[in-house]
């Protein structure tokens, strides 16, 4: 499987990363990863979400310090690890997914942000202009140095980011999913720029999930999986099936619980989503969720999965589309309406959007129902709250000595169970779980799978959004795959024929758009 490229008889490598490991607490984010990059090469980095690509690039840019034992060589010289300023001085420049420009400033101000040409603290404006103009000309952009960044399109802003990288004489530019928010014309423009950077001897490390881009751009492709290096393919060796099988391919089926099959008889539709659309991130999505079923939603980060869930839950306003619960149309203006109707949503951002860290476990569990539990004049019913909290702690196996301690003191897995308990107290008919096991240790993961399985056995319709392919295959009966805001395909499995991982990858990267039907069929085959 592993294909190590024979180093092309080109110049000496501009960058070598050798045996890079990185651990966060007890989690190993990178394990002995080595890659080599040559000048004037587009080196693509691929792997599933969480495979370690971003961590590797953060080690390169100095944002993270690698564990002892690894070395980074630029032009054969070792560089100091974990120092972003040194990394920049060595010609390493990273263009992040979320653009880091100040929209209120001009193009040239942004290009030299933090390194303004000046004398004695007074800006040298003519020098700024003199240095900015040739760079912008080199990129062939359609805006001038004095344009305000806030008025530029996303694609143009990306060009400003690249221009900024060029002001520091970058020789290695990392692009992390640069085309996610670009139109196809802007993408073409970016590719032209990449080609011209290549011809100037600049190396590009290009992270992307889109197969077609990889075919078009990459000279070589390195694949990471589960924090380890899998292999590198040369342009001539590239094929979708090879790449996909390098990216996936592990078996954890015994880890997952899927016993609710037995309980589900004929399919009863609980939630119907029809043509839901927010005009931006979610495009014309329709699907049904059935009682006692676990419906997976797969797709890459940014494919609109969370946005779809938030539209259904009323957390964001939809532009078009209809929702039906048990055949009745719902008018949902906000989360309260969704909860009242029987739709519950578990956020992917546990601490940011879910928990009240300074409130007790009991309050966190009860917060959604204290209003309906309350006695006259809105006085809290403490006895009822205590009962609910105690019941939840027992049934979900939340490990805590008391329900009166703050939720912030719990481990990630137990915090997640507290949030699940909160939604269950609202007695939902449909539960949408967004990345339910993110940042949760293995033990808690399997308990969450057990909880999901039991809920399905009790006839609740469950929608699970997950970036973890083995997980979604392990627990779901059916998987919808989203790509660029649309439902790109559906993959079903049965007891004897498990859901096909490659089919999901193919739909989510778009390599199966032309022969969608075929892949769908493949999904049912062993």
């Amino acid at each position, binding site marked *: 499987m592993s294909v190590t490229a024979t180093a092309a008889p080109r110049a000496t490598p501009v960058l070598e990363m050798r045996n890079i490991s990185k651990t966060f607490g007890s989690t190993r984010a990178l394990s002995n990863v080595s890659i080599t990059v040559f000048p004037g090469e587009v080196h693509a980095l691929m792997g599933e979400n969480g495979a370690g690509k971003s961590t590797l690039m953060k080690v390169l840019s100095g944002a993270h310090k690698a564990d002892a034992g690894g070395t980074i060589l630029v032009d054969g010289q070792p560089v100091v690890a974990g120092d972003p300023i040194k990394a920049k001085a060595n010609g390493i420049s990273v263009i992040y997914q979320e653009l880091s420009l100040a929209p209120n400033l001009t193009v040239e101000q942004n290009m030299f942000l933090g390194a303004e040409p000046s004398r004695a603290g007074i800006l040298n404006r003519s020098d700024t202009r003199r240095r900015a103009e040739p760079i912008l000309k080199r990129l062939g952009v359609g805006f001038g140095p004095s344009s305000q960044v806030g008025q530029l399109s996303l694609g143009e802003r990306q060009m400003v980011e690249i221009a900024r990288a060029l002001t520091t004489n970058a020789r290695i530019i990392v692009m992390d999913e640069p085309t996610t928010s670009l139109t196809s014309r802007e993408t073409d423009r970016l590719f032209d720029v990449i080609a011209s950077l290549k011809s100037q001897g600049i190396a590009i490390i290009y992270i992307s999930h889109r197969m077609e881009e990889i075919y078009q751009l990459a000279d070589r492709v390195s694949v990471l999986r589960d924090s380890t290096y899998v292999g590198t393919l040369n342009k001539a060796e590239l094929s979708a099936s090879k790449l996909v099988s390098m990216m996936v391919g592990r078996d954890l089926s015994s880890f997952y619980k899927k016993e609710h099959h037995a309980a589900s008889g004929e399919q009863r539709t609980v939630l119907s989503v029809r043509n839901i659309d927010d005009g931006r991130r979610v495009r014309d999505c329709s699907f049904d969720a059935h009682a006692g079923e676990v419906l997976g939603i797969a797709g890459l980060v940014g494919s609109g999965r969370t946005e779809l869930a938030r539209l259904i*839950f009323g*957390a964001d306003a939809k532009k078009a589309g209809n929702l039906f619960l048990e055949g009745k149309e719902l008018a949902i203006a*906000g*989360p*309260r309406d969704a*909860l*009242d109707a029987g739709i519950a*949503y578990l*956020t992917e951002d546990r*601490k*940011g*959007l*879910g*928990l*009240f*860290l*300074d*409130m007790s476990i009991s*309050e966190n569990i009860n*917060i*959604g129902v*204290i*209003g309906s539990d*309350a006695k006259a*004049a*809105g*006085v*809290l019913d403490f006895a009822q709250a205590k009962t609910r909290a105690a019941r939840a702690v027992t049934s979900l196996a939340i*490990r*805590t*000595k*008391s329900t009166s*301690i*703050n939720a*912030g*003191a*719990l*481990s990630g897995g*137990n915090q997640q169970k507290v949030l699940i308990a*909160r939604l269950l107290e*609202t007695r939902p008919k449909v539960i949408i779980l967004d990345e339910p096991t993110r940042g949760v240790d293995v033990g808690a993961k399997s308990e969450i799978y057990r909880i999901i399985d039991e809920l399905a056995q009790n006839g609740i319709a469950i929608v699970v959004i997950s970036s973890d392919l083995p997980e979604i295959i392990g627990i779901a009966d059916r998987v919808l795959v989203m790509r660029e805001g649309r439902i790109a395909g559906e993959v079903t499995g049965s007891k004897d024929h498990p859901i096909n991982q490659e089919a999901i990858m193919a739909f989510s990267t778009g390599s199966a758009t032309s022969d969608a039907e075929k892949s769908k069929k493949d999904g049912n085959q062993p």
Partner: protein
Amino acid sequence: MSTTTTENANTLKLRTTLTALGMLPVLILLAIGFHLLSGRFLSVNNLSIVMQQASINTVLAAGMTFVILTGGIDLSVGSILAASAMVAVIVSLFPDIGMLGIPAAIAVGLACGFVNGSIIAFLKLPPFIVTLGSLTAIRGVARLLGNDTTVFNPDLPFDFIGNGSVLGIPWLAIIALATVLVSWFVLKRTVLGTWIYAVGGNVEAARLTGIKVPIVLLFVYSVSGLLAGLGGTMSAARLYAANGLQLGQSYELDAIAAVILGGTSFVGGVGSIWGTLIGALIIAVLSNGLILVGVSDIWQYIIKGLVIIIAVCLDRYRLKGLSRT
């Protein structure tokens, strides 16, 4: 793993308790210190004066606690107090129905707070800016009410509020304590109170939990306005007069200082009304004690200002101490 979790929790609880209590020793030390320096701070007579001095600020600070717990701020309470006091005295001048000055003043305060709250909750504007605007605008209204003069009523029908006492306890102090008790009940024993903490702790999570955030915000600013109206009544009753220009100037700062001294987090979600009471008492003790000791008016300003800054330092330190796992 579960032992470390509980240990963590215990440390957290201990810290929280310590910060809630944290200012009580300071209050006691200040009182003893001033007594040693002046020799008459801890007399029954002087303590009664301190309670009276603390009372109006306590009432304003109680309202401010509601607001700051949601992560907001209300800069307009001093102006609302002035406008309400004007209304209280003007209505009290009507023969026979003079007692209506009390409800009138409170209603004016509530109305001002309701307007603040509506703008903040429904137009989603930053509370600092909205209440900064109403600080100025309502001050203007207060001056307009008396044609920019001082209104007097030597026969104020509700003067007992300002100057009477029950069993030796001034009415002002009783009202302040009652306000604290009711606030405690609302914050800790009702659904709305829990929602206030939830909104301050994590507004987006609160929304996703189905809490109607705008209603909660409307409520807290209305409470703050209502209590400023009550403060206006108390102030008018004490002085037999009200002046739209001078009354309540910079009272909002004392109220904010009391809340922060009491350990309520400026970003919301954490805090207690008892802490606010202690904070208000510290400020009153400082004012009274500094006068008794003979510190000049100018130095009183400087010292009170430093106390506010130290309070914010404590807030920062506390947040760091409670760093989330």
